């Protein structure tokens, strides 16, 4: 079955760089899958997400990614590590920002924004400025903004990396619930191996310079998962060992 996202011998070089960031990368992601991408810093995880978002174009191979939207929705939406809320807009107006390029009636967009803020538990904070929100709340607004465009694919670039452990675990649980409910395809970049195994259907390890897929593991641990589950911990230890001694 053809994947929703398919990379074949994908390569990407930046102008003037000595060597490509990515080379010969093959990967297929099916609709509804939650795929976590892990790897060392600078290996090319975020670059790969930007290819899916069409923010970067491959220089080699092919990248079949969802087409540009039809006006009522965007096929791909992105959540960044630093939330990237527009500081001059309220939380609600930030959620609306994603929808403004869609041909949605204003009223419908506002209802969608209110409903999403309710879903991420921020109805009471809708009129606050980003500076008045905590890191976790800002990241929730960023997730609501991404969901507002009703994407087929949600790209998440270390979205919880800058948060404290408690907030991070809370948001991981909320994301797991959202994914169970919506069945949306998620590509999730993280440094945290436990987080990857806890959330994902598959964990893909990028390694090498230039990067390619070093490991692609199906996570068969039943849901809902527990962080202290021994199977999860064992798998994390195996991946960590592999990271220390790459093939």
């Amino acid at each position, binding site marked *: 079955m053809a994947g929703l996202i398919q990379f074949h011998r994908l390569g990407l070089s930046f102008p003037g760089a000595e060597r490509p960031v990515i080379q010969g990368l093959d990967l297929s992601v099916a609709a509804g899958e939650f795929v976590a991408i892990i790897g060392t810093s600078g290996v090319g995880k975020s670059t790969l997400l930007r290819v899916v978002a069409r923010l970067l174009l491959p220089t080699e191979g092919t990248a079949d990614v969802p087409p540009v939207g039809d006006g009522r929705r965007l096929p791909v939406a992105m959540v960044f590590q630093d939330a990237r809320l527009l500081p001059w*807009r309220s939380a609600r107006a930030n959620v609306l920002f994603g929808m403004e390029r869609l041909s949605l009636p204003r009223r419908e967009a506002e209802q969608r924004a209110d409903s999403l803020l309710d879903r991420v538990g921020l109805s009471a904070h809708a009129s606050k400025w980003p500076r008045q929100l905590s890191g976790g709340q800002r990241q929730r607004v960023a997730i609501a903004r991404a969901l507002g465009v009703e994407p087929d694919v949600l790209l998440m670039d270390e979205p919880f990396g800058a948060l404290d452990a408690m907030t991070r675990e809370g948001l991981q649980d909320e994301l797991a619930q959202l994914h169970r409910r919506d069945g949306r395809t998620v590509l999730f970049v993280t440094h945290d191996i436990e987080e990857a195994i806890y959330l994902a259907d598959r964990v893909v390890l990028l390694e090498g310079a230039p990067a390619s897929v070093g490991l692609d593991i199906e996570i068969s641990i039943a849901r809902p998962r527990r962080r202290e589950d021994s199977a999860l911990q064992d798998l994390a230890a195996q991946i960590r060992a592999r990271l220390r001694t790459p093939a």
Partner: protein
Amino acid sequence: MTVIPVSVTGGLPWRPVLGLALFLALWEAVSGSGIVPSSLLPPPSAIPGTFWREVMDGFWLPAVGHSLFHYLIGLVIGTVGGVALGVAMGMSRGLEDGLSWVVRVLRPIPGLAWVPFAILWFGVSPAAAVFIIAIGVFWINLFATAAAVRAVDPDLLELADAFGRRGTMPKLLPVILPAAAPGILSGIRTGLGQAWMAVVAAELFGVPGIGQRMTQAASLIATDIVMVCMLSIAALYGAMDSLFLAIQKRVLRWQG
């Protein structure tokens, strides 16, 4: 522990008031002591009376009216032109490169140096004064705006790309201008002050206004009238600046 009150909440801040009072007292003392003839430095106590005479004799209000007219028109033209070209230069590296030498040649020329051309092109008329004021304000806004636009966080531009605002123009209103607003508004505020300096300079060559009234008074050694004109400019600038600060605070309320 000793607590030093900085100001009384809800009352006048005492330190600035004290500073002003000391300044006026020193001025009055120097002027009254005879060290400096009062014809060269009129005492502050003479200023209210002179001001009242200027108003009642029908000099003050028309002069201020003319100057305000020159000021506002020149300010608007210079600001709109400077901000518009500054945005375009900030967004387009090609345009910035293309204009860089032109800007380098024209920028150091002071507004007053344009007086001969202003007279040749517009005559001794309000248009000449407006031209000189607009030139001075234009450069300030051009550089402040171009710098503010260039400094827009690239992460926000990438965010806009990710949400379907590809290219520069779709980002202009929702991202670039609001992100650059603090820098643009700082430039406009600097221009507000610069424009008053240009008003006086522009009117010194005979265009009706406060500058012209100052020249007339100075030629008659009526320094008290000169002082009234100077303080009128200071008061008008203070009022403009306070009004602008209130607007700026409202526009940038998201900064907290």
